[in-house]
């Protein structure tokens, strides 16, 4: 059932934007662009959080790194899209690798705190560099340039982001069915048994953590292109919290969970913020209810599964 809702959402996202434009509602294309970027980021987080049990509270750092991998070269007049993506992937992967080496030696709440601390380090590092706008952020006046693709066109940009979401989903799907994925999943379920079987799963986790970071860096690069304006606020710890929110709300460990979660998140944000300025309050209540009564998130509810 959650599979069907996931496919339905993908179908809507595939066909939606041209229809929205035809109906004279370009605003919806913007919403959907943001949705697919965040869904891709949340899917990369789900790979380590939902499937791997690594509760990273610093995943937004990779969105920031990806965005600045577009913004900083653009600031110097370098607009080559492949360079941007390469930088986004490499910097994110490097940061994930370097911090993962340390963070993955910790467990439970310590892992949550240390991943958050590393992300805040990047946040404050960017804030302190005034050359790139510091707190005020940086305007990207020209989007990444690709041969044959013009990202200045909203619809083209959208479909590139959509392709990124599809690619991320497919990659996580394949990974979780592979030998590597089984080790990741097994280590989440029972570390002691996995060690007794002979798995040195620290290395598998580090590889997964690095991969998830690199994937999220790509989402960040696309998000930066979309907003045309990037700031440290993109990687604030509350942003990391929102990504976790999407994963948990949608269903941690379910392939389409983060997509459903991201869609529900943006929808609720839209509805509740139109209703009250204190929209985060009912939002929080909702999350508590989901955590208490629907352990598998919305995807779990759709499967008829409860806590």
């Amino acid at each position: 059932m959650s599979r069907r809702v996931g496919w339905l959402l993908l179908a809507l996202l595939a066909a939606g934007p041209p229809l929205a434009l035809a109906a004279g509602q370009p605003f919806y294309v913007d919403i959907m662009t943001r949705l697919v970027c965040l869904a891709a980021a949340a899917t990369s987080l789900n790979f380590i959080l939902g499937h791997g049990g690594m509760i990273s509270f610093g995943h937004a750092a990779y969105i920031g790194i990806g965005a600045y991998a577009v913004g900083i070269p653009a600031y110097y007049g370098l607009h080559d899209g492949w360079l941007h993506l390469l930088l986004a992937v490499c910097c994110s992967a490097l940061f994930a690798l370097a911090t993962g080496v340390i963070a993955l030696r910790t467990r439970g709440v310590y892992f949550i705190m240390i991943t958050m601390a590393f992300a805040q380090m990047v946040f404050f590092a960017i804030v302190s560099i005034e050359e790139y706008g510091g707190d005020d952020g940086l305007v990207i006046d020209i989007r990444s340039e690709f041969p044959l693709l013009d990202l200045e066109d909203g619809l083209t940009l959208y479909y590139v982001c959509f392709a990124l979401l599809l690619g991320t989903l497919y990659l996580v799907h394949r990974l979780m069915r592979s030998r590597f994925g089984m080790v990741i999943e097994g280590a989440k379920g029972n570390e002691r048994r996995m060690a007794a079987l002979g798995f040195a799963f620290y290395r598998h986790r580090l590889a997964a953590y690095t991969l998830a970071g690199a994937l999220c860096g790509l989402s960040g690069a696309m998000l930066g292109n979309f907003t045309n304006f990037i700031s440290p606020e993109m990687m604030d710890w509350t942003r990391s919290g929102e990504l976790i929110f999407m994963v948990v709300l949608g269903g941690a460990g379910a392939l389409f969970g983060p997509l459903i979660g991201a869609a529900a998140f943006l929808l609720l944000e839209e509805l509740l913020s139109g209703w009250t300025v204190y929209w985060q309050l009912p939002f929080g209540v909702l999350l508590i209810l989901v955590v208490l009564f629907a352990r598998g998130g919305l995807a779990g509810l759709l499967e008829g599964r409860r806590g």
Partner: protein
Amino acid sequence: MAEEALLQVEDLKKSFGGVTAVDGVSMTVRRGEVHAVIGPNGAGKTTLISLLAGEIGPDRGRILLGGRDIARQPAYARARLGLARSFQITSVVPEMRVLDNVLLAVLARDGRSFRFWHPARSDPALVRPAEAALERVSLAHAAGERADAISHGEHRQLEIAMTLAAEPELLLLDEPMAGMSAEESRRMTGILEGLKGEKTMLLVEHDMDVVFALADRIDVLVGGRIAASGTPEAVRADEAVRRAYLGDEAV
């Protein structure tokens, strides 16, 4: 029976604070035999198993597996050298299927776990040995169930299947009969009897009927030390063992 020593423990010692749980234990497990360790509660059996499996490190002493000292190796490295353990309290991956749990054991043995693309669950190199191991412990019927959905007795069988699938040199069985009904216990005894002669086993067990039915040799652990050692007949006849452990009812 081959006389070659597969596992040699020399002067192994482990203290927790002021309590010496294992106090200078030396023992030899020969290749192909079923070697049992018995002892009253608090004798240090669990500590001994944890020391052998590598979950805790010893204060002193050597553990030789096939002549190689593994006493300072971490648990996963020992598993790779051919030591597989089952847990007293069932320890499986609850969210995964029964077959997947055994598949993981095969994968650990195979060693090629950094493969990112091809589906593991349809790989005959993994699935066939896993199914064979389930067959071996009469659990093939539950292969598709989630591991947290099967009965306690079936959990115990799964434990054995996972240790078998790892194709170890030495099976460390930590109270395989723990918490079993008489019926389940009989079935498990049958399974272990079927493995006897083929696999070398170190069996820590409370159930005396099982121990005397299966073991070729027995070490009796009392207060962290080996109090007696020998064939089941010799141990049964040993006066010190009777006093310390077996009590009157076992005579």
